[in-house]
Structure formats: C-alpha cells, structure tokens
C-alpha cells in the first residue's frame, strides 16, 4: 500500500464532474506514476482538459462546476476540507494552452510565485537573481534573455513565453507539472524545443500533458490515458497503447476512424 502510494503521484477514484447539468467526467479512476510523463489523449470534448484542471482544482473558480469523488495527490485527498489550495497549487504547477505570462517583466514573472508566497524583502537580491538565472537556464532561456530581464514578458516570442511559463513554476519546487496542450500555439521549432524541455524535466517532475496531437503523445510520453466522452477507456504504456490497444475504441481512434 505504502509502496503504491509512493509510486503514484496522482490517484483519482470515481471522479465525477458536472458543468451545470452536463457531466464532463464519469467515474474516472486513474493512477499517474511518479516521475513519468503521462499523456491524456482523446477527441475534443472527451474531458481530458477537465481532468487535468481537477488536479490543481483550478476548475473550481467557476461556480457552476460540481465535483464528486477523490483525488489523492502526494498522499492527500485534495478535496478534503483541510487541504490548503495555496500549498496544492505550489506543488502542482500548470502550463496553459496559450502562453500566459503576466504583463510584467521577465524577471518578475519568474519570481511571481515566490513573491506571492513570501513577504516582501524575505529574500536577498542576490538569491533572487540566482533563482531567476537557474530557472531560466533550466528551460533554456537564459542565454537569450539574460540581457533582457526587464523586458515585458508579453513582448517575447510565443515559444519564449511558453518556456517562461514553465520557468516560473520551478522556483516553487513543484512535484507535478500539468500541461494543457502546451504546444498548440507554437510552430514546429517551438514544439520541438518544448518537447525537448519536457524530456529534460522528466524524472525530476511528474508531468501530465494533454494533447490533441497523437504523434506528440507518442513522442514524449511514457504512459498514455485514452479518454472518450468523459470516461477513461484505456491506460497503458505508450508503446502498448499505440501498438496493441486493448479496447477497440482506442484502436479506432488511433487509426483515425473518428476524432
């Protein structure tokens, strides 16, 4: 039991979710393994983004969302009343479909997380600069941006913006990084470099990525979860899912019969 807990970063049990009257997730139970890259795939409207947005409870900002069931992240059911949303979101970072840096400087974007969780003047300037350098180096932006840290982040190229959105998660030392179609706004080069970056981060962080692009899921992920109409259809290692799908619906989707 303890070993299983350690192995899985995210465990959902009978997760149901409604947008008003519409049920978007139907009794979903998945186990996301620690340190791996797990891809959520499926046609539009299958609930993959909804599921992803449950993992940091960002869904709940809309009052018409109702959730039922259990999600255990790092050994704790995140729907328990004594869960701190702030701590949860510090451990579970999120990258969005459209790069969404905040319209302040690159430097401040990287430090945004630290700034909101600590009092002003809590850190020495040298320490903060070190963190910015480390985070930007990690995502491969330091060389390009070291002289442009004061530039407004929204003026960067989309690819740089998306990398910055990943970099700003790192100072909070998250365990899990959720990515919601992180490459859909990027060109081929941008997509490749984000995928390379994911591969670099693999192992240190548990990464869950939602993607429309099946080739991308195949390239980057260790495991795949196939969803359809709000239900989990199949979850297995990526090669197995693509080469030997167990469920005929999975097979048909992979062959492109629908979707």
């Amino acid at each position, binding site marked *: 039991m303890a070993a299983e807990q350690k192995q899985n970063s995210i465990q959902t049990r009978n997760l149901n979710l409604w947008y008003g009257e519409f049920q978007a997730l139907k009794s979903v139970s998945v186990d996301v393994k620690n340190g791996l890259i797990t891809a959520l795939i499926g046609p539009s409207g299958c609930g993959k983004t909804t599921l992803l947005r449950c993992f940091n409870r960002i869904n709940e*900002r809309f009052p018409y969302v109702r959730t039922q069931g259990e999600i255990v992240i790092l050994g704790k059911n995140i729907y328990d009343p004594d869960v701190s949303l*702030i*701590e949860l979101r510090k451990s579970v970072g999120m990258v*969005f479909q459209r790069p*969404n840096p*905040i319209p302040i400087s690159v430097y401040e974007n990287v430090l945004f997380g630290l700034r909101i969780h600590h009092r002003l003047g809590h850190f020495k300037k040298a320490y903060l600069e070190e963190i910015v350098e480390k985070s930007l180096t990690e995502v491969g932006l330091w060389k390009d941006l070291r002289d442009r840290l004061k530039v407004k982040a929204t003026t960067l190229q989309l690819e740089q913006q998306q990398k910055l959105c990943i970099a700003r*998660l790192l100072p909070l030392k998250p365990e899990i990084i959720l990515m919601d179609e992180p490459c859909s706004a990027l060109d081929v080069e941008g997509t490749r470099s984000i995928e390379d970056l994911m591969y670099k981060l693999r192992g240190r962080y548990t990464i869950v990525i939602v993607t429309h692009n099946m080739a991308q899921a195949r390239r980057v992920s260790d495991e795949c979860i196939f969803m359809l109409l709000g239900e989990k259809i199949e979850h297995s290692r990526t090669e197995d899912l693509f080469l030997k799908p167990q469920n005929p619906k999975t097979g048909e989707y992979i062959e492109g019969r629908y979707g």
Partner: protein
Amino acid sequence: MNDMSESDRLPTLPKRSVVSMAGEKLLEFIIRLSGISAIVFVLAIFFFIFREAAPIFFSENFNLVKFLFNAEWYPTSVTNVRYGTLALTVGSISVTLLAMSIAVPFGLGSAVYISEFCSPRLKEALKIIIELLAAIPSVVWGFIGLTVMSRTIISLTGAPVGVNLLNGGLILALMSVPIIVSIAEDALKAVPDSYREAALALGATNWQVVYRVLLPSAKNGLLAAVLLGIGRSVGETMAVLMATGHAVQIPHGLLDSVRTLTANIAAELGEASASSDHYHVLFLTGVLLFILTFAVNLTADFVIRGIRRK
C-alpha cells in the same frame, strides 16, 4: 466541340453597379465627416467662447494677473469693480479634490468587487443600480445636498451652515462614483482571463490576483476612469451651485462655504447684461475652466504614454 460548349458555359464574375460603388463612396465620406466633426466642434466651441470673452482684454477695469491670482470677485460693484477668480478656482479645485478622495477609493473598490468577487446575479443587480445612480439628474443631487445632507452636516458637526465644501464634495463624490465604477469595471473585464488563471495556478489568492495582476494590467483603463470622474467633478454645475453655499472665499476648512467656477457662471450669466464687462469676464471664466479640464486630460495622456513606454 464538347470543349467549346464547356468553355461557353464558364461563369463570369458579376460586376458591381455604378450606384452601389457611388453609394459606398458616399457612405465612406459621411463616416469620415462624422469622425472629423469632433475636432470641428471642439474648435468651434473654443472659438465662440473666446470670441465672447475677448473684448474684456480691452477693458480698463481688467487685468489678467489680477483675474487669475486675486481672490476678490466684485463684478457689480459701482465704485470698484474687481474680477479676481482665484477664490472660484480654488473652490472648484478643492471641491473636486475632496470628491475624488472619496470617490476614487470607493469607485475602484466597488469596480474590483463587481468584476472579481461577487456572484453573477448580484453583479447584474449592482450594475443596474449603479447605472440608475448615474441617471439621477444633477438638480436632484442638489436638492439632496440642500436638504438631507445640509441638515445632517449641521447636526453632526455643529457648523453654522450646512451648505459648504464638505457638502459639495460629498454630493460630487456620489455623482462621480457611478462613472468611475462603470469605466473601471470595463477596464478590469478587459484583462484576459488567462492572466488570472496564471496567477491562481501559482497559488495566488483572489486578493493577490487583484493587486499583483489586475491593477497593473488595467492601470490605463483605471486611470481613465479616475480622469473621467475628475472631469465630471470639475464640470458639474447645478449640484455644486446648490450644495456648496455659493460664498466667494478661499476655504480654510471643510465646513467653509465655497463657490466654483461653474456655479458662478450659471448664477451670474443671466443677470449680466449682454456685452457688458461682466458678461465678457464670465466667458473668460469659461475659457479658464476649459483650459483647466484640458490640462487635466493632457497630463493624463502624458502619464498614460509614460506608463506605456515603460
């Protein structure tokens, strides 16, 4: 043979009629005209006010320095006519400052509440009520100042008169809040939702989202809201005429009565005989008012540009 009949049947793109093309040109012209008309109107208004004011510069009773920096306003004195508007200018500015110091925090605060914190149903209700507040005629505000507010001020502070700077400032604040709220709310609504999600996903609280993300992102719109509030306050006439006590003096405290530039024009223009010195000097007061609001707008414009360049 077959090829021939095929090419005969090739469809041709229908041409536009002359009427339709001319109509479009005409429409374009009309639209351009209405765009330019704003400039024409502003210039025309300035021109006519200035034309009515100009003769005063040739009057022996008039001195521009005294007009601007003397607080004595005795336009109808038989022996010693004095046209000093300093007290009026100070009156206008002090009432506006007081009104803004109340209206800006309340206005921006309620805009933040409406746009970020309240439930959708309450939001609709609040917006309707605030619009209703904006629709109250200024003379009705004046009534409230003259009666309810005046009595309250007297009973709370023991001031001899209830119509004074405080009264005018409060009334003006109430009048500017709806404008500030609706413009500021628009500015906040225009901030992309993805910024909010970015901050929330990093563990920010709602309040942190407001002051770390929304206020910096929407600062131009918020500044515009404040400026429109100032414009409203400086230009308001009827309500301040009724609520400020209409005494020409430089106020020394909140409970002193004052008179504003606008109220002065409204009250005296009817009595001044046409093309008398008094009449012309009132128009010059209008020019002064015009320059004042223009200066406010211009500064704001520069401030916004400055922010943008950063």
